[in-house]
């Protein structure tokens, strides 16, 4: 029973992180109907940058964020405006996957060249301890990860709902032509949408660096996991992705404590295939997805 509670608690904590990591993917899909395969590669780019800042300056990994977040925002705008916007619209879905796949390979190669292929990790003193409540151990690094993810998502939602930019972004997601008719510069907004998406990758990368060792090829595993989350949640729905992230995080945590790590990862693919077979539009909303 304690074991299951442990799995449940860890699952909720990692699920929160998954929600943050998948939110960027939902944004890209929303604004451009593009599946951005390079998102996890950017996550690990952020993780490596955090590692560099941490080891060369000897400061807390979270102090890398003032550097990486603006950088990734600019990178995101650049990727949308210079690359994805140039693709022919009739075959955008397929070609954008290939394009971002090429970007992912490029980043992986560069990381492998500069940082070598061996494992790197950022470990802080506070990350090694854990909080014990009624026999359930909660590592502090997972709690911090959950907290940062929740905070970032709260900011993201606030921006999306409250700000004028958020309103025009949601309008662009809902109906591009109508948004243009009421005077929204949809091209520019789509660019900023990519920027915001990639900025979440900067935060996610730092958190990831804190809780797990990483190497250049680790992003492939995350492509599968994050894709499963956004498909189960319903492509393009940020809220759906967050709910699916918690659900899959809990499932993963439960399987991890009862069976083993291989099956825990396998659950993501099982859910992906089941979702595509039974309900391709996703389980939590995702009105956009039926066309894909």
């Amino acid at each position, binding site marked *: 029973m304690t074991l299951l509670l442990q799995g449940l608690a860890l699952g909720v904590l990692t699920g929160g992180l998954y929600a943050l990591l998948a939110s960027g993917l939902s944004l890209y899909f929303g604004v451009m*109907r*593009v*599946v951005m*395969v390079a998102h996890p590669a950017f996550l690990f780019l952020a993780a490596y940058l955090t590692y560099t800042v941490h080891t060369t300056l000897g400061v807390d990994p979270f102090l890398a964020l003032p550097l990486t977040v603006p950088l990734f925002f600019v990178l995101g705008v650049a990727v949308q405006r210079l*690359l994805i916007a*140039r*693709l*022919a619209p009739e*075959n955008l*879905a*397929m*070609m*954008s*996957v*290939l*394009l971002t*796949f*090429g*970007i*992912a*390979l*490029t*980043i*992986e*190669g*560069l*990381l*492998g*060249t500069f940082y070598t*292929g061996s494992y790197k990790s950022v470990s802080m003193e506070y990350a090694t301890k854990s909080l014990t409540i009624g026999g359930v151990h909660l590592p502090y690094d997972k709690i911090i990860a959950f907290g940062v993810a929740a905070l970032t998502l709260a900011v993201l939602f606030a921006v999306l709902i409250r700000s004028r930019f958020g309103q025009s972004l949601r309008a662009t997601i809902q109906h591009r032509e109508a948004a243009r008719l009421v005077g929204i510069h949809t091209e520019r907004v789509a660019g900023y949408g990519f920027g915001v998406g990639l900025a979440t990758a900067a935060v996610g990368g730092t958190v990831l660096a804190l809780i797990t060792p990483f190497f*250049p090829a680790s992003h*492939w*595993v995350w*492509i*599968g996991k994050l*894709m*499963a989350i956004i*498909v189960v949640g319903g*492509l393009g729905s940020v809220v759906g992705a967050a709910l699916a992230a918690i659900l899959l995080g809990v499932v993963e945590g439960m399987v991890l404590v009862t069976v*083993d790590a*291989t*099956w825990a*990862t*396998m659950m993501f*693919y099982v859910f*992906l*295939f089941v979702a*595509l*077979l039974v309900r*391709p539009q996703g389980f939590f909303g995702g009105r956009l997805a039926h066309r*894909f």
Partner: protein
Amino acid sequence: MRTVSRGLPLLVAALAIAYPWLVPNYYLVYAGALTVMYAAMSTSWNLLGGFTGYVSLGHSAFFGLGAYGTGLLVVRLDVPWVVALLVSALLVTVFAVGVGIAAVRVRGASFVIVSIALVSMMNLVVQGWRSLTGGSTGLQIPSPFPGLHRGQTHVVFFYLFLALLGLALLTWWYVSRSRFGAGLRAIREDEDKAESLGVPTAAYKVIAFSLSALFVSLAGGLYAVWFGSLDPIFVFSILIGSYMVLMSLLGGVRNLYGPLLGALIVAPAGEYFLIALGETQIHLTATGLVLVLVVLFMPDGILARFTRKRGGPSIPDESADQRLQGVAP
């Protein structure tokens, strides 16, 4: 022009057959065999990708399954390697029919996601099932020709891969002239219209998917007995799958010889990178950048530049009047 289009393939075929005797050392035979293997695989990939427009980044799953199927039959059950190769290819094809039925239900981006997920799944299974596959330590397969030294084995497998390439090219050519091929092309142009016109789209897609998996798994099986050692991280790598896509796109997916041309460019370039730069990861960056450039500037491939003026709509956009002007004497 007609003599060129007839004669050139024959000339290339003759050169390919003579290749092992023209080059000065066995390393070049090895590089040649590897190139022909990739050419065979990307031509098989093009059976699905070129006709239907369904881009699979996960064909390395079938490559790896073919390799492990063959290897396990030889090692665990002492089956002769030719039998093992054919049996495993058959099993992989049956498996591909099952996967295909699920995978082709989704279109566009979702299909690509499914194909990537398939590779990751297979990688997990093979690494996790330690007692059967040897897990991440890999699988060792005894050499099929104990009498030959390493270099001579390269020559033998060069011809085996060449035969597979010939078979794949013949299949593509045959399909491209058949009613089946016309149906697949209709799926590429507009799947809903094709279906409403009575093309059995689901069945056609599954057949194309499995046919292409069959040839790729044969290449995987040959690779297993040729190399003699299998590493799950290499054979189930996304990279092999992306090579097939890159080669096909670069050469031109709508042309019989497109993937072959792409393989002749990409595979030797990759080997050259390996020698010039050693075992760094920079070849990934090179592959990625070339893929980005091809997608951005040349999505129809090299051959499309020569064979057609522009890749416009397949139905000419002109009025009946213009049409009449064209045929009037």
